[in-house]
């Protein structure tokens, strides 16, 4: 009873809310104010959010979409695409389907709209069956002269290649809007004649070998960067301020210099008629006609990329090392630990966040590098991004380029995930 009377007053306050000066319940007013503040905060980040959506989310989304979505077949031959979809794939399609095919061909021949011409279809089929492009352009030129059945016989009269069930199986596949064939091509695989997935002929395998090469070259470049950067950063962080600032400028000056300038500087240094070879010849290390090929190959790519990416390793290492008090090492030494032991047990573990940040940064930058290998890579120093650029700029097979780009993105994400498992992303310290 007494308990009830004692607990009564709080019950009253919860049912009759506190009122602010203007008569609005305080709770409501508080909620409104918080909401307004949240809105304001959101509003402030809006430009960034929009920027990210426009410059990051949309393009990547489009790339993912383009790598599986290629509507060329159904764009060029809309009616045929609908009819062939239900074909059972046995023998040759019925003459009804062929009639639609011929009529679509004749209509497409007159179409000059970008993306809906016979040329577009021919290019698309040529990806699947190399050498078949002219079969389509040639047949389309004569398609409007075929006015009555049997249509298949008329097609075979134009070219006997039409008398091949596998060609029609391919057409059935090509007229579907969604396809995995670009991912197959990007992993050196293809559909064989009967429609099952096989590896490409050994002489034509290029994408997987280059992808592996890109990964291990990036790992090599990261390792080299680490080996060079660790002592340099240590020196920078322990020297007196005046000297270390001067040395820091030597690190930063190249960092601020244009990528192209630095790459061309390496060309001037390393080429067969370049400075280093000239010095070697002058000093008598090598004969004049035995100059060393150091550029336009893998060596050139590695040297130039290590130099260009080095600051990305030095800067995080330096900023972490700077925060390690020298007294720790002194304490370890004074307690009897040897130089190596105290380095291993005391100093090194404290630099791990910097190493983690540096290696991740350098590796991810290296794996997508494009300009430097294009300029100094020659034949065997090319990376996967150079092939992607080739498909976007030269062969215009954008779907294959998108598939390769997506694979590269997935590879980077896998490495990031592995990294997170091993080092922990929270452990990163960029400075």
């Amino acid at each position, binding site marked *: 009873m007494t308990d009830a009377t004692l607990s009564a007053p709080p019950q009253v306050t919860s049912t009759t809310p506190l009122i602010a000066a203007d008569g609005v319940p305080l709770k409501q007013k508080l909620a409104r104010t918080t909401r307004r503040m949240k809105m304001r905060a959101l509003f402030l980040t809006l430009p960034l959010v929009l920027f990210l959506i426009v410059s990051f989310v949309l393009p990547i989304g489009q790339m993912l979409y383009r790598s599986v979505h290629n509507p060329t077949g159904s764009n060029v031959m809309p009616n045929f695409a609908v009819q062939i979809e239900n074909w059972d794939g046995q023998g040759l399609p019925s003459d009804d389907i062929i009639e639609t095919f011929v009529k679509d061909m004749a209509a497409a021949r007159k179409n000059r709209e970008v993306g809906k011409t016979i*040329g577009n279809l021919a290019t698309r089929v040529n990806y699947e069956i190399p050498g078949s492009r002219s079969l389509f352009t040639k047949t389309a030129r004569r398609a409007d002269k075929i006015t009555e059945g049997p249509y298949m016989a008329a097609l075979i009269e134009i070219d006997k290649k039409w008398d091949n069930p596998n060609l029609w199986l391919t057409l059935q596949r090509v007229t579907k809007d969604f396809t995995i064939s670009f991912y197959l091509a990007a992993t050196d695989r293809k559909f064989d004649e009967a429609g099952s997935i096989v590896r490409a002929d050994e002489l034509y395998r290029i994408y997987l070998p280059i992808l592996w090469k890109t990964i291990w070259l990036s790992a090599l470049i990261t390792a080299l960067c680490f080996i060079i950067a660790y002592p340099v950063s240590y020196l920078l962080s322990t020297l007196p301020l005046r000297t270390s600032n001067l040395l820091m400028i030597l690190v930063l000056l190249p960092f601020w210099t244009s990528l192209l300038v630095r790459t061309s500087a390496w060309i001037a240094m390393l080429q067969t008629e370049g400075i280093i070879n000239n010095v070697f010849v002058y000093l008598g290390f090598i004969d004049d006609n035995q100059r060393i090929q150091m550029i336009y190959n893998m060596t050139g790519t590695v040297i130039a990329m290590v130099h260009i990416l080095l600051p990305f390793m030095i800067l995080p290492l330096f900023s972490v090392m700077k925060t390690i008090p020298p007294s720790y090492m002194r304490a370890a030494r004074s307690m009897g630990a040897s130089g190596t032991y105290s380095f291993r047990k005391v100093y090194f573990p404290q630099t791990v966040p910097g190493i983690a940040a540096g290696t991740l940064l350098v590796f991810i930058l290296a794996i997508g590098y494009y300009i430097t290998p294009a300029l100094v890579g020659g034949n065997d120093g090319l990376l996967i991004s150079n092939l992607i650029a080739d498909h976007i700029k*030269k062969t215009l097979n954008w779907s294959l380029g998108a598939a390769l780009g997506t694979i590269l993105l997935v590879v980077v994400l896998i490495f990031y995930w592995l990294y997170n498992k091993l080092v922990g992303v929270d452990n990163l310290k960029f400075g």
Partner: protein
Amino acid sequence: MKLTKLLASTAVGVAIAFGSVAAQAAGDLTVVSWGGAYTKSQVEAYHKPYIAKTGVNIKSEDYNGGIAEIKAQVEAGNVTWDIVDVELSDAIRACDEGLLETIDHSTLPAGADGTPATEDFIQGTLYDCAVANIVWTTIYAYDKEKITGDAPKTMADFFDLAKFPGKRGLRKGAKVNLEFALIADGVPAQEVYGVLATPEGVDRAFAKLDTIKSEVVWWEAGAQPPQMLADGEVAMTTAYNGRIFNAVAGEDKPFEIVWDGHVWDLDLWVIPKGAKNKEAALDFLKFSTETEQLAKQASYISYGPARKSSAPLVGKYHNKDIDMGPQMPTDPANLTNAVQNNFEFWADNADQLNERFNAWLAK
């Protein structure tokens, strides 16, 4: 009524205010070509007389071939190039894919001797979307001062490292290199595409390329090979014949062209679909492919005019006593073992063969 008038006058005012930029953009004719000595020959033979005749200002831009830029511009609906000089296989493919304006051949001016254009142009130089201006070719050349003894004479010599040691320059890509390899291996130039159409033929070509692979320096832009020869970086190199000729005629380089087994091709004018100055571009196209202009271009670079009526007018190099006739890819003496680049073969097989070429290169 008043409001629309007000709006209209405001629009006019705005148009005048911003118009100077816009008008210039719409008025300037953007002509895109391959740069270097080639563009220079076009400026002298086409642009200057055209500007003098019409007063239209011409903006000349350079590019490195291919149809990627045209495709990007047309698909984005913002076509800034009005007329482009392209290779035949690119012209055919771009036309097939609907990226180009079609050109009515009957509107092309007749030859200087009155022959209608359709008969005056050499057979196979007029296409639905493209009109040829020149015949050019890929040959190989060497430095006479470096190779002094026995001179290389055949395509087989180019592939003979024992007889002619030294580095070789080749264009990076499958096109033309495979033809050269087969010709060097003993296939007559005229039969090259028949052999190349078989898998064994392709293997044979790559096997022949294998024999010189270790000594090859690859080039990409047309200006590179004469430079590589001049620097002594290579002993011999394939090149566009006009570039080598201009190094000889214009810069007195001691280079010699070997005509055996050359693979000739066309350069054509095309107008991207939706070009801002379509009419002016068409007008420029007609003007530049008239008999006189084509003949005049041949006095600046050794590329053959696409009109029959231009041939008799081809004289000497513009500032030297060099007869241009024997320098032309179409000169009968230069055609004894030569073949025209088969655009249909390359349209069909370029993707696959380039893939194999790249895989071969990376090994």
